[in-house]
């Protein structure tokens, strides 16, 4: 991978803490640019793709779900560039190879694409839903290709009813870091929280495709994005002082996903947080470190952030870029009370995701006061952040009386799809409104 993209890490924070201050927040912006991001056949990294289609019985109610899923999978197969190793899997109570017949990946070429599409056409739907078993087969298929970009698409229409949550958790634990999986729910009989858990564990996205007719475009977009990845398995290595505690590491752009639980110890006082595969793109992360209070004037490196490609066991990681999160105590309130705009923005959007999910849960539970309060807060936060997608989704669930104060009334009748859309949209963030005007704070020399 000689044409690896150029990575940059940028830190946004207010390093100044008041006397006795302990909590350091920073936004870590990671951007990759240039490099051999695959646009044609000559890709930088080897890629592997597994397409998983739910073929449980419910996919035929209505029949358009299965037909659209097949069409979408066929489009995904067409979008694979030549040479990408791929397979198509169908899932019900257990997983089954659709193409090829053996449990293996084959290179994308005209013959294999044609054969795969023909096999997809013959799919029928029956049986239940056991997502863990589908992922286990995908993991097996990806196993020989751990050096390349590994991406799966999982489409389902129902709840994971035919295996226990513990079984699913065990599979997710096993598969974490082994491949990235974007999850899509079709129709309205699946559970957003459940699929979100899968997507978060496998560093993918979750979304609702309420109208089966939209599946084709969505699959094409996902496959194209996967084909654009040039580096697999990037990790954020976060060093913290001996006496500090890393409170959380979250992805905050393009969507909110808490990575804290995914820490893998990497070096003394340092842990790796997996960031998945990267093409030419940018993502933002928020980290929070608790440090012991220092004397006024003292400066501390509260975290040392390195973007790395972890090496094989015993090998040094390849460091792509680094950044310092600093803490400096001051008795100047003008400095310590200044809030970094990007930290504030993303803190608000994390809260936005939380209050939407809490509000929807309260609404389902019949706790209308809590639902009104949370969703009202969400309207206010979304308005402040300029998150128009979330604002639009909220307006299908609540009547907004005043967006500035967050005064809302719950709508009496809400389409299930609208509620689920709001749920899946809740974690999608937008950049700060005038992001380009946010200055990078350099450490003082």
């Amino acid at each position, binding site marked *: 991978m000689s044409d690896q993209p150029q990575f940059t890490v940028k830190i946004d924070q207010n390093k100044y803490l008041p006397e006795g201050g302990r909590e350091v927040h920073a936004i870590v912006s990671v951007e990759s640019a240039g490099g051999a991001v695959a646009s044609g056949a000559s890709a930088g990294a080897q890629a592997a793709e597994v397409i998983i289609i739910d073929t449980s019985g419910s996919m035929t109610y209505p029949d358009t779900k299965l037909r659209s899923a097949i069409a979408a999978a066929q489009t995904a197969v067409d979008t694979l560039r030549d040479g990408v190793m791929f397979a198509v899997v169908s899932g019900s109570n257990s997983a089954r190879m659709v193409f090829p017949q053996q449990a293996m990946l084959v290179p994308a070429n005209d013959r294999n694409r044609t054969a795969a599409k023909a096999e997809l056409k013959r799919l029928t739907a029956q049986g239940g839903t056991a997502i863990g078993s589908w992922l286990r087969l995908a993991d097996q298929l990806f196993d020989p290709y751990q050096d390349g970009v590994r991406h799966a698409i999982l489409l389902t229409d129902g709840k994971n009813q035919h295996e226990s949550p513990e079984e699913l958790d065990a599979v997710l634990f096993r598969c974490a870091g082994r491949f990235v999986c974007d999850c899509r729910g079709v129709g309205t009989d699946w559970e957003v929280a459940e699929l979100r858990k899968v997507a978060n564990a496998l560093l993918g996205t979750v979304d609702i495709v309420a109208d089966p007719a939209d599946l084709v475009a969505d699959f094409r977009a996902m496959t194209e994005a996967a084909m654009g990845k040039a580096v697999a398995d990037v990790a954020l290595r976060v*060093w913290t002082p*001996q006496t500090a505690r890393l409170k959380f590491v979250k992805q905050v752009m393009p969507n909110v996903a808490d990575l804290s639980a995914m820490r893998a110890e990497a070096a003394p006082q340092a842990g790796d947080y997996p960031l998945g595969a990267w093409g030419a793109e940018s993502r933002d992360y928020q980290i929070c470190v608790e440090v012991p209070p220092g004397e*006024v*004037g*003292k*400066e501390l490196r509260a975290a040392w952030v390195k973007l790395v490609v972890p090496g094989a066991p015993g090998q040094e990681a390849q460091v792509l870029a680094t950044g310092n999160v600093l803490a*400096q105590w001051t008795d100047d309130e003008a400095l310590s009370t200044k809030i970094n705009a990007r930290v504030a923005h993303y803190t608000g959007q994390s809260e936005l995701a939380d209050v939407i999910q809490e509000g929807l849960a309260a609404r389902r539970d019949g706790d209308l006061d809590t639902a009104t309060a949370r969703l009202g807060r969400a309207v206010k936060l979304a308005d402040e952040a300029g998150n128009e997608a979330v604002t639009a989704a909220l307006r299908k669930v609540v009547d907004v009386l005043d967006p500035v104060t967050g005064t809302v009334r719950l709508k009496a009748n809400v389409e299930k799809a609208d509620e689920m859309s709001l749920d899946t949209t809740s974690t999608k963030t937008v950049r700060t409104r005038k992001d380009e005007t946010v200055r990078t704070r350099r450490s003082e*020399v």
Partner: protein
Amino acid sequence: MNGNENGDMDGEGNDTAVEANETAANGSATGEGPGGTRPGAGQANAGDAAARMEPTGMDATGMNPAGMNAAGMEQSAVKPAELACPQCGVVVYPGEAFCENCGRQLIAGRPGNGAPRPSGRTRCVGCGEAAVDGEGYCEHCGMKQPADRDHLEVELATPGGPVAGVSDRGKRYARNEDAFAIAPHNTGVAAVVCDGVGSSPRPETASRAAADTAATEIATAMGAGAAPGDAVRMAVRKAATAVAGLAESPEAAPSCTFVAAVTGPDGVTVGWVGDSRAYWLSETDTSPAADLADTGELNSSAVTADLRGDPNATSPDAETLPLGPSRRLTDDDSWAAFMVASGALTEAEAEAHPNAHVITAWLGADAGEVRPHVRSFVPDRPGTLLVCSDGLWNYFPGAGDLAAVLRNAQADPAADPTGAARILVRHALDAGGRDNITVAVLPMAATPSTEQAR
């Protein structure tokens, strides 16, 4: 750092006496120069740290009288060579910054040109682990290590005994904008302390350039046989030119204060511009009553005349004053000094006033013609010459205050000038460390002339 405004006097003596200089200091008119809001970044334990972080290569072991070494042959080629490189013994010219033979640094006090410390496994000043990385952070506790200039200690052995300088960033500013340089000359030593004016751009470059230029110039001039007073005046002129040369425009003129002290067989000569000071601390001051000797030193007529730009006011420094008990040797070019000298305020009132630290003279492209005050003294007893920035004297303004600090700490400047300088810096830090602190300590035995007189 000198966190003050450059200001012009309107001569009216009221609270608005200081106005931003329209052509030169308008950037500071808000009273909050870049330095004004800068956070502290000092090392609370810098004193301890220093013991471990002492820059190597600066603990000059002395300038041996030449003529007794391999360089003797060159002696005929040069003027009466008095100095030799302490490292290789080759004859060096007074004022040379580096030995031409071995590269040894000869003028002490410059911390290199801002290059980061070598990244080796230096011990952390915070936790003591040998884990300081190339960026200057401890890989164990994360603490930012002091930069070269954040805390600097220099001790120089001279024929008259060791002299020392210590400079510290303090606890409130991110950067040390003070600079000092100590240069031995044929018959003594010269120490220069400069304090960058916080409201000017890149003040740390001004203080650095002024201190280096002046120390070099004094040593060179003394080597050429100049009188100390002339050497100081010439040094101020050269330093002023060097500092003025740093300005991109008169509106963006790096500037600094200046104080130099030169010792020699004839006594002590001090010269200054601004509010950095020199003190004489008599070794035989045992009684706190000596504080009383530290009053009424403002030469009010001279100060007043200076401020009015009377060209005749600055010249009469030919007089040589006797030096007995501890006292301050300089009179600040400052608003406070002016107010006191003109009788408008008491010293305490002036010091408490917000304008107290506004200086009325400085080196810089916006300073106009710089006329230093120069005074010479002949000590009649042993003592210590102290040259310092306001980061120290803000907390200990009287010579008696400073003497008491050393006396209470049982410091022996003659035997351990670095220790004495550290004690003073430590006390300024403990008292708040609101500004950069720089102290040069030049112990002096009684001058020969005095001894003869006895």
